[in-house]
């Protein structure tokens, strides 16, 4: 198995009576609630957490894109990935991802991902989400009736831009470019591995299968609620004749780790409560614009009893209910290991995206959790699925060939501090 340390970067200071005052955490939450000076400290605290995960040997570190909200402060995940590309050296960088239909032209994504891949020495995993309705339709004004078509066209353009070695013209419905000729090109050939985050759309499953992409199921309802959906995914893969390789699937799970089971609730409940009852306070009028979900997917979701996934979020639940419902996996290292192994085997998932930071958790708690995971849980789970080859992993430059940020300054320091004329 492989382990991704995933950060949402929620804002930490949504007021106590937040749910009474505002109908949702997204789209039209007044930005007067955001304090940039606190935000400055928070970004650095969050990036520190991710860098620590790299130092402790997590396979990858993850960031994603959301707009106009107090739940995830990364309208541009590529900026975060760029900061991390210079400050980390080992972990792969999972940008999950860029909502490609939002970029005009979409070749911007091909360029920025190529830059990240080159800067990081080929460590990039490129995620292509459609994006949530809140982000793409309500914040970025994309038409829900056409966004999936626009997404597909953007995808085809980006892939071609990465593959072609000669300039080409693109006469699309949504993008028209006379000259497409991407500089720089990614280190990974033909391009970085592509992961597609999705919730329950059948079209997304088929799209992943057709292109051999990784399907990343990112819900906050936990592994128990995901079972039926992922059973549907694996059935669909079997129907389409794809091998049941667990690494073709990633799953996000929230994990609260403490030294012992007994301490967990006391340490984590305030932060879990903050996440489920403030960060996930979604306004139902903006979760399902007409056309965003296809009729086939609406019908399938009904059949699978998954209901309106976006609303099935675990608000107003007690700690006990969240733990029993699998929304969070909580406890000491042995409890967490057991449940994660159960998750991996029941969902048949080779890539685990771990939310080890939750809600308002401070760095002391988060880093302790990261440390326990890296030292006491990760090594024991590592062998799971070792019989399968991971085709969805970056082909990074060997570590010895990767540039070390700052090294060059060090090497020329003495010459730089002498007068210019002596330099030959």
């Amino acid at each position, binding site marked *: 198995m492989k382990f991704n340390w995933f950060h949402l970067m929620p804002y930490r200071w949504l007021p106590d009576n937040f749910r009474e005052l505002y109908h949702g955490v997204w*789209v039209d939450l007044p930005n007067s609630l955001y304090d940039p000076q606190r935000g400055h400290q928070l970004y650095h605290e969050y990036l520190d957490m991710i860098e620590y995960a790299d130092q402790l040997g997590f396979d990858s570190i993850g960031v994603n894109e959301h707009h106009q909200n107090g739940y995830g402060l990364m309208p541009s995940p590529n900026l975060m990935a760029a900061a991390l590309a210079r400050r980390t050296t080992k972990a792969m960088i999972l940008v999950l991802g860029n909502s490609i239909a939002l970029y005009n032209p979409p070749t911007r994504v091909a360029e920025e991902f190529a830059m990240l891949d080159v800067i990081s020495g080929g460590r990039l995993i490129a995620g292509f989400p459609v994006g949530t309705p809140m982000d793409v*339709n*309500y914040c970025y*004004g994309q*038409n*829900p*009736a*056409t966004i999936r078509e626009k997404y597909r066209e953007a995808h085809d353009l980006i892939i071609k831009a990465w593959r072609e070695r000669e300039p080409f013209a693109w006469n699309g*419905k949504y993008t028209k470019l006379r000259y497409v000729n991407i500089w720089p090109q990614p280190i990974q050939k033909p391009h970085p591995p592509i992961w597609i985050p999705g919730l329950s759309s059948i079209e997304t499953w088929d799209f992943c299968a057709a292109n051999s992409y990784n399907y990343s199921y990112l819900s906050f309802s936990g592994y128990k609620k995901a079972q039926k959906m992922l059973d549907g995914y694996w059935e669909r893969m079997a129907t389409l004749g794809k091998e049941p390789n667990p690494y073709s699937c990633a799953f996000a799970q929230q994990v609260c780790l403490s030294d012992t089971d007994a301490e967990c609730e006391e340490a984590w409940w305030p932060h879990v409560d903050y996440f489920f009852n403030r960060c996930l306070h979604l306004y*139902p*009028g*903006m979760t*399902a*614009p*007409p*056309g965003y979900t296809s*009729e086939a997917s*609406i*019908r399938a979701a*009904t059949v699978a*009893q*998954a*209901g*309106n996934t976006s*609303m*099935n979020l675990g608000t107003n639940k007690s700690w006990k209910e969240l733990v029993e419902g699998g929304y969070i996996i909580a406890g000491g290292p042995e409890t967490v290991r057991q449940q994660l192994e159960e998750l991996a085997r029941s969902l048949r998932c080779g890539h685990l995206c771990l939310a080890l930071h939750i809600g308002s958790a401070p760095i002391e708690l988060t880093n302790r959790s990261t440390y326990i995971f890296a030292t006491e849980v990760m090594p024991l789970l590592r062998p799971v699925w070792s019989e399968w080859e991971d085709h969805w992993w970056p082909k990074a430059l060997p570590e010895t060939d990767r540039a070390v940020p700052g090294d060059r300054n060090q090497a020329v320091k003495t010459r730089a501090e002498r007068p210019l004329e002596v330099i030959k």
Partner: protein
Amino acid sequence: MNSPRSRILDLGKNRPSIEILEAGEGPPLLFLHSAGGIYAWEGILPLLTRNFHVYAPLLPGFGQSTGLDRLEDQFDLFLLGFDIIEALGIERPYIVGESFGGWMAAEMAALRPREISRLALAAPVGLWRDEAPVADIFGKTIGELVPYLFYNQTCMAAMRMNMVTMLFSEEDDRSQEQVEILIAMSRGFQTVAKFLFPIPENGLERRLWRIKAPTLIVWGEQDRLISPTYAEIFSEKIAQSEVVKIPDTGHLIGLESPEPYAEAILRWGDG
């Protein structure tokens, strides 16, 4: 008078397929429905048949009509309106459009001014003023929309709409029939979104001067979805026009005050 005939209009190969509801005798009146489609032969529709042969096409996504993917942009939609007139074999109809349909009717009248004899726009969408933003019908729950659409929230149609909200539950306890109702609603709404998301303004104002048909503009005085102040803007920009405001009425005039509304529309048709 109370049960219209329904038929599917053949517009040719690879073209949308359009269901037409029709009733009444007299000169042709083309009725263009609002974002809610035609739930039943109710509101102003049966009243219009007093003087007119009423043709009420359902746009793709509504009723049995299909082919939204054949309409790439708004001009495809406006031209579809003329294709329907052509296929019905009628000439220079009186067009009555409500809300979304009012916008389409105004655009058609601006596009081919000589092919429309008279025009009535009931609370049409299509213009925008920052000081009176049109409410966002795509960013609200059905239940929250009710006060935007109705002044009298205990009228039958308002109550019916409130009933629909009960289909949106967090539990998975809907019957297949209820699921189909939700899907049908979402399908029609998708058509509206395709042309009017996220801001329902796409240049109509610069084309309004081209309208030659005598135009009646009807508005509910208590319309909270689209401010009645837009009536005056339409009236200023359309050469031959008149404004009628209906008291104690919200956005869906036909469902709330059908009689005074029909009276104004029928009078205008006589002119």
